[in-house]
């Protein structure tokens, strides 16, 4: 179980807040990481932009190359003409329904296997196997069963998103303080009260972490399922653009997916921080 938490810790590492050991830092010192980060991105974009002026490309290679300014223009046009809304809506629908199903299945199941060792032992092989397996292998099968369109997308999204939720909920439930559970029991609480008053509040930050990872997987699920088995959506738009050598649209679509994914995950990160503020053990630095 520790290793699963290690996974979580590792996957969350990219966002460890900067060291706050120097409270008297000047504005420049506090802003430095931000400025440096911005510079890093800008420099890469500039180099990318400058490549055609420095290197002469063959005609074939030119077909695949596009500078970031062109991508920005395409992105702007997609929004200005409104051409992006229809495919984006289709993708968003698949994302939302799939994630909703993952939550409805993952949360209760996670609580159940967290509270019962037998159920956990029963489900563990399947959870391990299906979590480790790239869900892509099921895609041809899912297409066969659900056809092109919304439902196969929903299945792929839900299938990918359910496992981070399930595993994190399970982990959070298992980590409930025995002492608190015993206290509540001593005062005559039943299993339902224990779950409601101690276990679930304790698991909340874990659940949010699970949700954050689930969102990342759900976005990937939308992309992948639209690439191989769908007739509408942003991913479909990108594949069609790629086959017509419209590289701009591919990158523009990627930026849209990236922005959505980053926005949603950072909102959840804020929520995680806000909701774990009350925890005494975190304050004590345990």
């Amino acid at each position: 179980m520790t290793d699963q938490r290690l996974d979580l810790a590792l996957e969350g590492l990219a966002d460890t807040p900067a060291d706050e050991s120097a409270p008297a830092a000047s504005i420049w010192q506090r802003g430095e990481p931000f400025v440096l980060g911005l510079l890093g991105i800008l420099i890469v974009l500039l180099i990318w932009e400058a490549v055609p002026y420095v290197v002469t490309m063959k005609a074939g290679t030119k077909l695949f190359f596009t500078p970031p300014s062109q991508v920005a223009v395409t992105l702007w046009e997609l929004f200005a003409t409104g051409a992006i809304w229809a495919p984006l809506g289709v993708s968003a629908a698949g994302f939302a329904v799939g994630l909703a199903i993952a939550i409805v299945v993952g949360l209760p199941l996670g609580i159940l296997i967290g509270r019962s060792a037998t159920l956990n032992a029963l489900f563990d092989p399947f959870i391990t196997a299906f979590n480790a397996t790239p869900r892509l292998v099921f895609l041809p099968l899912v297409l066969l069963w659900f056809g092109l369109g919304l439902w196969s997308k929903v299945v792929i999204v839900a299938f990918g998103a359910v496992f981070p939720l399930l595993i994190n909920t399970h982990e959070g439930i298992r980590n409930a303080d025995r002492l608190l559970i015993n206290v509540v029991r001593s005062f005559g609480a039943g299993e339902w009260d224990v779950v409601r008053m101690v276990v679930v509040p304790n698991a909340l930050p874990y659940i949010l972490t699970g949700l954050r990872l689930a969102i990342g997987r759900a976005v990937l699920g939308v992309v992948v399922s639209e690439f191989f088995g769908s007739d509408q959506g942003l991913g479909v738009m990108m594949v069609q653009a790629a086959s017509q050598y419209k590289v701009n649209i591919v990158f523009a679509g990627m930026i849209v997916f990236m922005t959505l994914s980053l926005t949603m995950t950072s909102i959840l990160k804020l929520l995680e921080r806000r909701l774990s503020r009350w925890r005494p053990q975190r304050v004590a630095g345990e």
Partner: protein
Amino acid sequence: MTDAAAPRLGFARPSRKLLIGSVAVVCFFIAWQAVFLFIPYNSLFITKPSLMFAALWRLTLSGQLFFDLGASAAPFFYGLIAAVVVGVPLGIVMGWRVRVGQALDPLMTALYASPLVALAPLVVIFLGVGIGGKAFIVFLLTVFDFVFNAYAGVRSVDPLLLNVVRSFGGGEKDLYAKVIFPSVIPYIVAGGRIGVGRALIGVLIGEFFAASEGVGYGIVRFGNFFALDSMFAYILVVTVIAVVLTQGIRWAERAGFPWRIGQ
């Protein structure tokens, strides 16, 4: 964690869990086989475990399975090796030089969060459907796992340990050999565990898009022919490989870096 309180159960508990788990898996296959006694069986829609294992046996004997596995394994390993070679030094530099880390962190985070899978069509058009294209997709999907884990590993180095080595007259070489590498390597292995799963995705995506051989291609082809027994056999093979790889690395982590278990 709970085992510490009851050492007597420490042995019984894992074996009981293993027993229940194995029984559950066996029951799952039996139920799958038995359900067709009650509902009509449609071979265009699903397969039976018996047919699946028969197909697996057939494909193993004919050598088809090993041919496809070999075709998929090459880009898998090339891509992963390239990701380690590029990602680990980059992560170490990012961790060791604070400003480099600050400058590259947002860029890497954005790239890590973006669905790089989306570049697969471009990669396939550009590099072709052979080993090169697939290996590059694998590289793209896994390199950031190594970057971020090496980065985190260096940052987790205990400054106290560095100072101890320095106090006892250790040079730069000793710092690397005695402190930095031992603390970074477990992180890199953990990155490898996450990366292996993403590498499998990369290989499959490459083969779904366009390929003439490989496990992913096999799954799509069997699906197109409605040869569901063979398709399920391949899916089972991928599942087993995925589990063996991730659990194998996890086992190696426990065996190789026992001091990290409590962390």
